[in-house]
């Protein structure tokens, strides 16, 4: 099944997100209350809905309770974004909600309202320039890994019961080297929901529910995943 996402607000940012997601084979539903934006979205061949999403019925009719994977609140109205974030979180505990804010105060509010991730285009832009000024070559490499459809990619592997890594120690894992894969670190449920770098030097026992983060070439990643025999969570 294709992952279904809602883009709330076909703004300049919203349209970019929708197009990027479409390229990655997501099923994108565009919701907006602005006629012009809706027309644009239709022109770009998206499924559009003329909703404000300010009442729960509209959200439920879109299947927010079980049929949607994530929602992007990027409409031109900050108030609406906040409201939608709150009501979506109310209806569904597990949905990924990504919102946008231009100021730090606003992003705090959104996080309290239940947003999973708040993006700040100003900060992102500023940091990008900063990286480019200070370490241009490195930034390019990382961008290649993260964003472009180059051969190199970053990926995550979910450890389940049957995985060969289950009950093993992080430091003892050397097998990834045969696959030409880098192991960056782990997210461990027992140590909180934070990502821990392998470089921290801890020797931790891997068990069910942990997530390994790896970098490598696409083919190698595929092979490595099959080798680990874990179920694949997320796509490349």
């Amino acid at each position, binding site marked *: 099944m294709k992952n279904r996402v809602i883009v709330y607000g076909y703004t300049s940012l919203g349209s970019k997100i929708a197009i990027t997601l479409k390229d990655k084979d*997501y099923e994108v539903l565009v919701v907006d209350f602005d006629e012009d934006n809706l027309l644009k979205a239709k022109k770009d061949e998206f499924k559009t809905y003329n909703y404000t999403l300010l009442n729960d019925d509209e959200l439920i009719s879109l299947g927010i309770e079980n049929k949607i994977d994530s929602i992007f609140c990027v409409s031109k109205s900050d108030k609406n974004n906040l409201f939608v974030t709150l009501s979506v979180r109310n209806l569904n505990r597990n949905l990924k909600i990504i919102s946008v804010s231009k100021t730090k105060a606003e992003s705090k509010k959104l996080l309290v309202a239940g947003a999973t991730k708040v993006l700040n*285009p100003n*900060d992102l*832009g*500023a940091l990008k320039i900063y990286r480019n000024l200070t370490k241009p*070559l490195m930034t390019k490499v990382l961008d290649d890994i993260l964003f472009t459809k180059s051969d190199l990619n970053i990926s995550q592997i979910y450890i389940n019961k049957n995985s060969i890594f289950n009950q093993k120690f992080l430091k003892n894992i050397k097998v990834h080297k045969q696959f030409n894969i880098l192991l960056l670190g782990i997210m461990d449920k027992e140590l909180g929901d934070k990502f821990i770098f392998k470089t921290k030097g801890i020797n931790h026992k891997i068990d069910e529910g942990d997530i390994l983060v790896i970098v490598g*070439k696409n083919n190698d990643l595929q092979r490595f995943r099959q080798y680990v025999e874990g179920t694949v969570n997320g796509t490349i």
Partner: protein
Amino acid sequence: MKTSIVKFFYFLDNSSFYTDFKAFTKNILENSKYKYKKYFDFFMIFLVISTIGILIYEVNHPHLALFDNYEYAAIIIFIIEWLGRLWVYNDTRKIVIQDYEESLFLASNYNLKNSIKKAFNEKLKFIFSPMSIIDLLAILPAYRPLRVLRIFLLFRLFKILRYTNSLKEFLHIFKERKFELYTLVILSTVVIFFGSTIMFIYEGPVGQNPNVNNFFDAVYWSLITISTVGYGDIVPITPEGKFVTLILVINGFLVIAFSTSILTTALAERMEHIKQNRIESEVEKLKEFIIICGYRTISKSLIEELIKIKKKILIVDENPEKIALAKEQNYLAVCGDCTDMDFLEKIGVGKTAVTIICLFENDAINLSAVLGARTLDANIKIVTLVNNIEVESKLKLAGANFLINPNQISAMVASEYIGQPVAFDALYGILLNEDISAEVDEIEIVEGMQIIGFDINQIDFDDYNIVLIGVIDTKQNHKFIFNPTNIKYTIKQNDILIVIGYKSSIKELKTNFFNNKFLKVQDEK
């Protein structure tokens, strides 16, 4: 004779020592932007103040021979300075050579006298300029028989004006407000004249007012009254005199209010100019700084980051309010139009600025600024914001090195995030400086590192708790080689290793690269 003089001038023109020395003298005397001028100025101010101090001291103290010598030494320096100014005021040799070449070209007879006269006239212009007269008056009292002229020593105080820029600016105000000040002077002269005439007519005759004996007393009285000083040594007695006093007092208010407002408004206006000049001269002192055009939210985030790594920044914006905000944060900021090439040149584009970042919301302004900067400097690094994707190619064409589209980045980040949040958080978290436990960094292989020429597998990165992501091969057009530990890769100079790890461990590895400690311990095996 004539030809030998012309030859001599040609010789001077060709002598690099002569021209350099003259340029140096001119710089130290006239060019307020010259580095060493301030030392010269300090020295001269000290000289002036010390000689005046001696004058004051000698009024009621015994005469000391040492002070005389000091005075003479000071005078000699003043004379040399004045002669230097006279010398650099214009170039006689250039006039002679130009005239001579012109006459050669026209095949007419060359007249040396004419050129000398021309040059001399220009020198005269300098001699009779107010500043030169002040200089001369400051030298004059040294001539013993004219001891009466000692009072002119105070003219040396005016000399100080020469050495301080801010006072010069103040004098400028008088020049700028000539018209208003003239009106003021004429108005008060008329009032004073009327007042003193009436006073003299009614109280001047013998016996009327014992204090008003001549017209000068009347003028003195009216000036003291109109200025609202009012000593009270001369007071009107007759009703007519008292009436005139009333009018003078009211006028006095007007004159003072008028003159104060003229001077304060002019000063305020001038102040802006002075500030601007100060920033420009400050910018000139900066080396390798970054110009940020447009002070907005995105600029603020960027500046915060850049300040952390101690970069020098100049903020430019058209909006004075935004400049005021930037100044509140103690940033160096200047108000001006970035699309104006003259302005860009003034703030150091093409000279000491190494990077210019255009962060305007309007792509047209960005484009214009990029184009202007590129025209002024072929090497400057230009970073610009792109708000509309269609303009991207135009901005590239205009010469921008790096384009940034915040919406595009946010969209990519957002879409990447929903796919694999953990992996994404991992790498982007450190990119955003959110996670301080580890950071992505580059290690540049520089000359002197012992590692050069070794196989990369001989370094045990695990031992340092560092993950090596890859190597950028600078020699091969910055090719990125991922995870080179599986192949045999020999480290070359100028390679860049990209690693993830603790700041301290990365530092340790870097220092170890300079000695042989980096090698895997093989002897034990």
